[in-house]
């Protein structure tokens, strides 16, 4: 009986974590959409944060933003992928899209990191 409740508790905690993260992500998205929410990528370079999806897919970033996205993408690529293996070369876009989906599951890369890395690896 106790074990059953333990497992239920474990799952409930995880569900709670997931929902709290969703709520936080929404709050970040709202505030960042209302005003600019740039984050320092390196030095004075800035990149969009959680709302970068819209930026990445919907609008054409200017040169400075493009450079910041690339820098941030490379940083996240080395930080996440380099935890386990050497940095692979850039693959064609469709190959990279498959690989990143696989690694998202395997390495539990966050959604945000995945998008930055995919953009960096396919540009």
């Amino acid at each position: 009986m106790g074990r059953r409740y333990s497992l239920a508790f474990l799952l409930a905690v995880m569900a709670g974590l997931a929902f709290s993260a969703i709520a936080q992500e929404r709050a970040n998205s709202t505030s960042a959409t209302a005003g600019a929410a740039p984050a320092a990528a390196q030095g004075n370079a800035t990149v969009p944060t959680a709302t970068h999806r819209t930026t990445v897919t919907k609008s054409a970033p200017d040169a400075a933003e493009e450079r910041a996205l690339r820098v941030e993408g490379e940083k996240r690529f080395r930080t996440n992928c380099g935890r386990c293996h050497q940095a692979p070369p850039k693959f064609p876009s469709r190959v990279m899209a498959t690989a990143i989906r696989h690694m998202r599951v395997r390495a539990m890369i966050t959604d945000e990191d995945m998008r930055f890395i995919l953009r960096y690896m396919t540009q």
Partner: protein
Amino acid sequence: MANPTPQARSQHRGGEVRRFGSARGWQIACWIALAAVFSACPANQLNAQTQPDEEVTPVPLLTGSTGFITTFNGGQPDFHPIITPLVLLPIGRRWVFETRATFETDLAQVPGRSGYHGGPVQKEVEYAQLDFIANPYMTVTVGRFLTPFGIFNERLYPVWIRNLQTDPLILPIGIGPSNASTGAMIRGGFKASPKFNINYTAYFSALSTVTPVNSDRFAGGRAGIFVPAARLEIGGSFQHGLQDTRSNAFGFHAIWQPPALPLDLRTEYARSVTGSGYWAEAAYRLSQIPFHQNEFRRTQVAARMQQYFVGENAGLALRPVNEKLFECGLNYYFIDGLKVSSNYGRQFSAAGNGNIWTMALTYRFVIPLGRTGRE
């Protein structure tokens, strides 16, 4: 490899096995299913923001690795060719089917014959799983999957990834008789604060006695905190057996890559009734040496210290006696995915000390199964 084969490992887990007939197992499965259902709800609310792969259409891939590993353990040579193909089949925008198999054999000298001769080729489906990316924070996996206990089995096992070719002594702890589980799993990673990410997984495995895809009945989870700025990840694993002695296993892991250095530090500790132990590994790229940079940036030195202690249930012990193993090695990367490795290990145990020499040539391949242009 230093550890027994999956088949040998499964022999340690003999004895009475309770059948998967009680309601408890189904209740656990229901909990996982419920979590999956709940996880899908926010995905609809987040709408287009959660589309996983933007405008790039992924292509099916045949990837994997191949290697030729030569080991001299106590003077006994062992030639070990291995090929591990991995098929990735993305389906739609949220699904991916992935399966990995291993084909390996041992070449050995046969008395009265010259040269080395191969035994039967061992074939094994390491995993075959269907993943559903429910939302940005959760993926649901069903099928046969690598048991997420610790970090080595899931992340570092392929020969092209590992820094030292031998398995850690504690690898079999918590991963099941064939390194994999059969059941369902939820997992994911998300940004918990601007400073750190959380990753988690919870799983349930059912009993399977079909060799070589056998699995034990257990449930467990793993959680980790990753600090990107420090490149530090720490985490822990827990597993509760639902058969035999219904024992628990737990472990801790840490990965640190100091941002200022081309250095990888990894460590893992695991404990169960079958045994306990730890390993700690460091690998350093010589890219900071100011001369012959083309050569040195491709060169990596690695070292690992590990210990194994026989568990309280000696009948199920992975190894008969306590053991200590120190290894150091050198890797040279010709190109990405193609490397040659050599390492030396000294084994200390009550059963006798010995040297282990290993040389390996490994290659990682990627073959698209379709057009690769942007669509």
